[in-house]
C-alpha cells in the first residue's frame, strides 16, 4: 500500500505550496474583481462584470502598448542573445562557466537598482549623451530618457540572461561533428548555420520567448524608472490602481485580463509552432 501512496506524498509539498500561494490568491483576486465598494466601507461580492468592460475600455492603450513593447523586446532579445549564446557554446571552451557567470554577475544587484543606474547612463547630460552633445554630434534637445526606446532598452537589458541561457543550452547540445558534416556536404559556413545550427537552436529560442515575453509585457519597473507618462505600461496601471487609487476590483480585473491575453497568446504560439515543427519549417 505504501508504494501506491508514495507519488502523492511526493506531490504534497509542492502541491500545498501551489494551493496556498497560487490557487488561493487567484480565487481571491477573481472574487475581488467581481466585488463593488470602497476601502472605507468594504467590498461586497456582486458579480459586477461591468468592471472588466470599463477597465479594458479605459486602459486599452496601455494594454496594447505593453504587448507591443513585450513583442519588440522579445525580438531584440533574440537578436542580442543569439550571438552571445553562440559564442559561449562554440568558442567558450574551458571558459564557458566563466562567461556564464559574467552574464549573470550583474544580476546579483537588485533589479530596481540596476534599472535606476540606466537613468544615469541615459540621462540628457549623462555619460552617453553628454560627450556626444559636447562634440556636436547630437542636438542639445535630443533625449532618450522618457521615450519608448529607453523603456525597451531597459527591458532588453533586464531579460537578456533569460534569452541567452535557453539558447545556450540548445546550442551546447549540438554535436560539432554535425556542423562539420554540413560543411563536408558543400554547405558554406553561413549555409551550415542556416540549415543546421539555427534549426537545432530553435527549441532554445522557443523557450527563451516564453521566458521573456510574458514578464516583459507585464513589467512595471522599467517604464516607471526609464519612461514617462507616454510609455505607461499595464503593469504600472495595475500597481497604481492597487496601491494609489485602492481600486481593488479594477486592478484585479486588469490583472486577470492581462493574464488571459498572455496565456492565450502563449498557447496559440505553442500550438502554432510546436518545437518539432519549428525545426522542420526552418530546415526547408
Amino acid at each position, binding site marked *: 500500500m505504501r508504494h501506491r501512496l508514495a507519488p502523492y506524498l511526493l506531490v504534497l509539498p509542492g502541491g500545498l505550496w501551489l494551493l496556498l500561494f497560487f490557487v488561493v490568491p487567484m480565487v481571491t483576486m477573481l472574487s475581488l474583481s467581481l466585488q463593488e465598494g470602497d476601502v472605507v466601507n468594504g467590498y461586497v461580492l456582486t458579480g459586477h462584470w461591468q468592471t472588466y468592460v470599463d477597465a479594458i475600455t479605459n486602459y486599452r492603450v496601455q494594454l496594447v502598448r505593453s504587448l507591443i513593447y513585450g513583442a519588440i523586446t522579445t525580438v531584440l532579445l533574440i537578436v542580442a542573445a543569439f550571438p552571445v549564446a553562440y559564442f559561449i557554446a562554440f568558442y567558450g571552451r574551458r571558459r564557458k562557466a566563466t562567461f556564464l557567470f559574467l552574464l549573470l554577475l550583474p544580476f546579483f544587484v537588485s533589479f530596481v537598482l540596476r534599472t535606476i543606474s540606466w537613468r544615469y547612463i541615459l540621462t540628457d547630460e549623462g555619460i552617453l549623451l553628454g560627450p556626444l552633445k559636447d562634440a556636436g554630434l547630437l542636438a542639445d534637445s535630443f533625449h532618450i530618457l522618457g521615450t519608448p526606446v529607453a523603456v525597451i532598452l531597459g527591458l532588453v537589458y533586464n531579460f537578456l540572461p533569460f534569452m541567452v541561457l535557453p539558447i545556450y543550452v540548445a546550442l551546447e547540445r549540438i554535436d560539432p561533428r554535425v556542423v562539420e558534416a554540413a560543411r563536408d*556536404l558543400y554547405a558554406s559556413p553561413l549555409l551550415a548555420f542556416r540549415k543546421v545550427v539555427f534549426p537545432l537552436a530553435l527549441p532554445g529560442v522557443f523557450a527563451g520567448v516564453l521566458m521573456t515575453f510574458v514578464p516583459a509585457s507585464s513589467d512595471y519597473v522599467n517604464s516607471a524608472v526609464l519612461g514617462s507618462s507616454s510609455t505607461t505600461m499595464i503593469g504600472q496601471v495595475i500597481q497604481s490602481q492597487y496601491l494609489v487609487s485602492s481600486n481593488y476590483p479594477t486592478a484585479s480585473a486588469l490583472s486577470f485580463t492581462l493574464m488571459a491575453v498572455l496565456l492565450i497568446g502563449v498557447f496559440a504560439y505553442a500550438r502554432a509552432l510546436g518545437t518539432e515543427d519549428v525545426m522542420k519549417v526552418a*530546415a526547408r
Partner: protein
Amino acid sequence: MSDTAAIELVGVHKDFLSHGDTVQAVKPTDLAVGQGEFFSLLGPSGCGKTTTMRMIAGFEEPSGGTVFLDGNDVTGVAPHKRDVNMVFQSYALFPHLTAYQNVAFGLERKKVAKDEIRRRVGEMLEIVSLTGMEKRSPREMSGGQQQRVALARALVNGPRALLLDEPLGALDLKLRQQMQIELKRIQREVGITFVYVTHDQGEALTMSDRIAVMEGGRIDQLGTPREIYEKPATRFVAGFIGTSNLLDGSVDSVTGGVALLVFGPEEKVLVPVPASVTDGAKLEISVRPEKIDLSRDAPAAADCSVLTGTVREVVYHGTSTNYTVRTSAGADLVVFDQNAYSAEDLAGPGDRVYLTWSPQHSYPIGVRP
C-alpha cells in the same frame, strides 16, 4: 588505377601547440592513394590517422606540405569546396531531418535539379538497403541503419574519394562483420576511392587493398594486407597486426641468402636475409604463431628452424589451440595449432617440446636491403 592519384599528400605535417610545446601530431608524410582503391589508415588512438584524414577533408589545415586531390592542389581550400565526403565516427546525422533529407542534403547544396535528387537519393537508399525508410528521423533508426544513412549521405554526391572515420566503431561485433562485407560490396559497386581510418587491424586486413600502419604521427609501413602481415617492417607493426613472436639474435653465418643463428646444440634459426646482412649482425626475427609446428618428438628435417622449450600455458579457442612456450632462446613463443584433425592437445603444461618452422616463414624486421 589511372596515373593521377586520387589523393596525394606531399610532405604534409601537422603541429599542435600543447602547454607551450609544439607537438607533431602528424610528422612530414608522403602518401598516394590510387583511383578506386580501398586504402586504410591503421593505428592506435593518437597515432595521427584521424588528423591525416581531417587534413584530406579540409577540417584541419596542414602546418606544412601540400594536399592534392586528383592532381589539383587543394591545400587551404575550405571543406565545402573539396570534392571528398566523409562518414563520421558518430554518424553526425542531422537530427532535425529525415533519412531522405539527410541523404539529399549535399545534392541540394550543389543545386542539383529536384527530379535528379529524387532519383539519385532513391538509388542510393536502395544500394544501402534502406528503401522505405525515407521518412524516418535518425532517432527512429537503429545504429546499423543510421550507419547506412551516413554512408548514403556521403556517397550520393559521387565524391572523388570517401573518407571513413572508424565508421563501424559503434556497432556490435555481428553487425560490424556484416557491415564490413557490405562496405566492401558497396565500394566495388560505386567504384569510389575509400580512405578508411580504423584501429581494428582485423577490419583493415579484411577490407583494404593497401594499408598504412601509423604510429606516433608517422607511417611505419605501407603495403598490401599480405605484405604487412607477412613482412612487418618494424617491431611495432609486427606487434600491432595480429600476434607476432619476436626473437633477438646474432648471425653466425650466411649461406645462399639464408642466415643461420645458433641458439644451442640442437637449436638454430634459419632466416632469409638481404645481401647487406653479414656474419655477426644483430637481427630481430618475426615468426607468426600459426606458422610454427609444435611436437614432442625431435624433427626429422634438417633445413628448418628448431627451438626447444617448455609449455607454460595451453588455451583452447575452438578453431585452434594456443600454446605459450618458454624457449631456451630467451623468449616466450606463442603457437597456434589448428584443431583440424585431433581434438587432443599436442602437449600439456610442463612438457618439453620442439618448435619448428620453415625459413621462409620467418622475417628479419627493420633490415634494409
